[in-house]
């Protein structure tokens, strides 16, 4: 997983987290949103750091015919060239000074996660009974089904 994939994943995880949080977790513990963010980002940072310093050997991906990771600096090459496993090779080689950019990108996961989480709140709401802006686009069938269930329940 390259830096760009990490950003996208952080954004998506933030979004999903805020949806799950509103739907299931908030009822039990309001701090869950922070716990999940910490757990996810820690794991992501740890994996990326281990890859960056070649502690996790990514050359195993060479079994894919379209992947050709160098034996030295394979971790950095893998991280800089996002979407490698999807067959897209930007052929970016690590240069001195790029550590700063790498550090910046890693830190930015936090912000992307935050943006995703914020957007998730807008779309799905943030309190247990809310539905967010999805309410506008919610299929009318769902509403009708819910209403009929509600009416039938009270009839019994």
């Amino acid at each position: 997983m390259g830096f760009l994939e990490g950003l996208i994943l952080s954004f998506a995880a933030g979004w999903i987290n805020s949806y799950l949080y509103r739907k299931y977790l908030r009822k039990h513990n309001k701090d869950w949103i922070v716990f999940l963010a910490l757990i996810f980002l820690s794991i992501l940072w740890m994996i990326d750091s281990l890859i960056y310093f070649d502690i996790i050997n990514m050359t195993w991906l060479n079994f894919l015919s379209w992947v050709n990771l160098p034996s030295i600096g394979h971790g950095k090459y893998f991280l800089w060239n996002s979407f490698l496993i999807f067959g897209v090779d930007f052929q970016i080689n690590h240069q001195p000074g790029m550590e700063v950019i790498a550090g910046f990108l890693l830190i930015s996961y936090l912000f992307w996660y935050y943006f995703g989480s914020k957007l998730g709140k807008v779309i799905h709401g943030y309190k247990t009974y809310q539905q967010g802006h999805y309410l506008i686009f919610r299929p009318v069938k769902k509403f009708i089904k819910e209403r009929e269930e509600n009416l039938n329940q009270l009839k019994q």
Partner: protein
Amino acid sequence: MRKLVLIDGAKGHTGTFLIREVLKSKPDWKIIATDLPVEKRNKIMTKETIFSRTFKYMTEILENEKVTFVSSDLTDKESLNNLFKERKYDLIFHTASLYDYFAPLDLLRKVNVEGIRNLLEIVCKTQDLEKLRFIHWSTCGVYGEPKYKKDNKKYPIPTDETVPYNPPNNYSVSKMEQEMVLKEYVNDYKLKEVIIRSAPIMGPYQVYGIFHLFQIVNKSGFGPGIHVYPKKKRLAMPLIHVKDLVRAALFLAENHNAIGQAYNLVIDVCFQEEFLEYLADLLNVNYFNFPIWWPFYKLLSKFLFWLDSRKEKKARKLNSRPPLDLSMTGYMNHQYLFSNKKIKDLGFEFKFPDYKSATKDTVEWYLKNKWLESEY
């Protein structure tokens, strides 16, 4: 002074509040209350169960010893005989009406227009028209979107009761026709009438109309702070608190100068953006400012109207109803700016004269009674 009053639509939102107000402020009045039989009512009033079947009006008030309930159906002439047999009323409050934007025009005409015709026919045959006053409930919707006069800065000036009819939807069409039928009887029989043209009603126990807006803001978790530019285009939010509405009805019923007149019942001018910001604040949801140029706002409202029209079509196909009726979305880009000067000049004082007092009272009741959800 003892009076015999008839209140129809007695199981409805306004009807129950009117009965409560009469019991409170006119202890020597005797009330005959009427509404549809339970099964018929449940069948026609599907709007009352849009959000929950547990939401109920204050119908327990009908059990008060000073209230006699007689069921009747305005569309069935025979059923009205029981109401008028050997009774001479001093006042008739005609609150009964099918207020449902989803209802087809045929049904609205049957209940609202033919209903009032049947009622007036028997009233004019059996009652002493010299002493009787007929208080008729109408709506500001009959004006539609009038051509507004402008002030020096080209801001629209609120209109009075003299604006011609231009109803924008089926419900308002039926209310306009109702007024026209009433005017026929006023001309032919010299019936003493007062017309109340109410803005959208808010207040405790209300389940339809403004309540949709409360539900949307509460459920979505966001107050849409749409600020329309240029400012002269910003849209007004006409409202009235149900308690003021029924107080005004009693005030007009007893005021001799009100006979033969129509009165707008609406709070002082407030704008949608102020109202929504305050509502978001009361419901403890996020509010964001979204400045938008008027033509873009119109486009946005047309898009939402289109989206809602698809939902309504689907709901009709499934023999059910959508959460938001199309005419409500249609109000999104209409300017409704009505003046309450006429009733104020007559001496009526509002208890909830502005949007803040009316909204606060309503929202606090909803939250307290859990009609609007909250985590606390």
